[in-house]
């Protein structure tokens, strides 16, 4: 750590006003030495930064708007459904989930859980470190979970939805012709059927046991690590929320893998809902 002290040449101002970009907070406790204070004047340093950023963004937007026109297709026609019908791009992550789950889950329950899950983050992440600076080491679990949920599950699904989905919501590479008559084998089968169950109740039980088994990780994990200091600090209620949200999120990759490898359609079929 350098011990240089930056002095202002300004007659009145404190050292804070000089070399803002280069200045790092230097704390030397107990010496009474002059250090760069953590706070600097908003005028001009902060306003200037905002102004430049805003100007660049505004110019970029103007150039973009001059160069590229907003889309406009034929007049709305309720009797002619385009194939594929895509939601706005920012919702294609949700539409992509429809490949793996029924609408009540993919379109309603999961979006709600995403919003609620985001909202509760500050209340379930009790790690006091990493407040006000970039760090990976001090909060790797939080960052990896967020990274997986946001980048892998949300952003990547949007890319797949925007660029790789064509007629019939079939998978097309960007250079492939969108053949609306593409033959795709519909060989998806339900999980209990795959395991050999043919009766209604046996299928129901197997499906329920599978979904239950998936979520039984939650109590098992609690039993295993209940007495660890980190777990004690977290507490039972917070643990339930964290693990519940986490496992629900993991349901998506779980089913994706099952679909790609074994063509599994539903895990559990009931008269009221299917998962």
């Amino acid at each position, binding site marked *: 750590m350098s011990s240089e002290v930056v002095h202002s040449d*300004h007659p009145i101002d404190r050292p804070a006003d000089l070399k803002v970009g280069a*200045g*790092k907070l230097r704390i030397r406790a107990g010496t009474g030495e002059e250090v760069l204070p*953590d*706070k*600097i*004047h*908003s*005028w*001009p340093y*902060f306003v200037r*930064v*905002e102004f430049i*950023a*805003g100007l660049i*963004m505004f110019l970029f*937007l*103007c150039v973009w*708007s*001059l160069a*590229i*026109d*907003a*889309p*406009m*297709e*034929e*007049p*709305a*026609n*309720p009797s002619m459904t*385009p194939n594929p*019908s*895509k939601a*706005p*791009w*920012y*919702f294609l992550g*949700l539409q992509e989930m429809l490949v793996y789950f*029924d*609408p*009540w889950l993919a*379109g*309603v329950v999961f*979006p709600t859980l995403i919003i609620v899950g*985001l*909202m509760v*983050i*500050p*209340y379930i992440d009790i*790690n*006091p470190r*990493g*407040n*006000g600076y*970039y760090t990976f080491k001090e*909060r790797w679990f939080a*960052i990896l979970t967020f990274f997986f949920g946001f980048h892998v599950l949300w952003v990547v699904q949007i890319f797949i939805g925007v660029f790789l989905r064509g007629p019939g919501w079939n998978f097309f590479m960007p250079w492939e012709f969108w053949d609306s008559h593409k033959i795709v084998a519909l060989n998806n089968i339900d999980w209990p059927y795959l395991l050999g169950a043919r009766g209604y109740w046996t299928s129901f039980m197997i499906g329920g046991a599978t979904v239950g088994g998936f979520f039984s990780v939650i109590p098992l994990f609690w039993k295993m690590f209940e007495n660890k200091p980190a777990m004690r600090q977290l507490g039972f209620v917070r643990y339930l929320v964290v693990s519940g949200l986490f496992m629900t999120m993991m349901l998506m990759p779980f089913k994706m893998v099952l679909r790609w490898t074994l063509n599994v359609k539903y895990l559990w079929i009931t008269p*009221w*809902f299917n998962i």
Partner: protein
Amino acid sequence: MSEKADQQKQNILKLITESQVWTSTFRHGYADTPRNRALQISANVWLHLHPTKVRRHGIRYRYTWCAGGLTFLLYLVTVVTGVVLMFYYRPTGEYAYHDIKYLDFDVPFGMFTRNMHRWAAHGMVIMVWLHMFRVFMTGSYKPPREFNWVVGVLLLTLTLLLSFTGYLLPWDQLAIWAVTVGTNMARAAPLVGTEGPFGPEIGVTPRYNMRTLLTAAVNVGPPTLMRFYVLHCIFIPVIASMLMILHFWRIRKDGGISGPL
């Protein structure tokens, strides 16, 4: 300049800057003193959103990416261009599409205004995600800023809803089918959707359910257009603006953009 002319110039300047008109308009000078730097912010209605002093990390592009501020800028762009578009647009099945065509081809700068509105809206969605990502990565949601993060998530949701309701207004094929796909989801909502789990069991009908609440009809049609227009131009912007005021105010009250108090 001669000394006399210089003196005269000073006198005229003094006459102006000490007049009642001047002093009632400009409350402070421009000298680069700490006091004036503070007044520059606190005595300016537009700038006093900022504290007079900010934390050092708050002005680094590498730290903030300016994502929150740029989201707000893009919101303002959509408000201004949106009001201009409203002069030319009628949200009815007969007129909506043709009004947009008229805007695109006959109104001076109409196409440009619509482009600005659309791309700023898409940009806002991206910036708000980046902003959330930045706030997450710097742990800025940690105490004492938990509640402001919650407000931020609500604003993120409202941003998506603003964009989604606006998507329908051009009344072209892209618009109605994207909104059809989007609102179809509501039909499957548990309890309140006619095709959702336990929906029919508690008496939800195809005419009265969560989806028809959004679309105002069984299918996306002119009533939906009017409903989305009002949501897009009045209802959601008002709610979002109120939450933005709260969001910005809380940054101040919680002691800056991040870091422990």
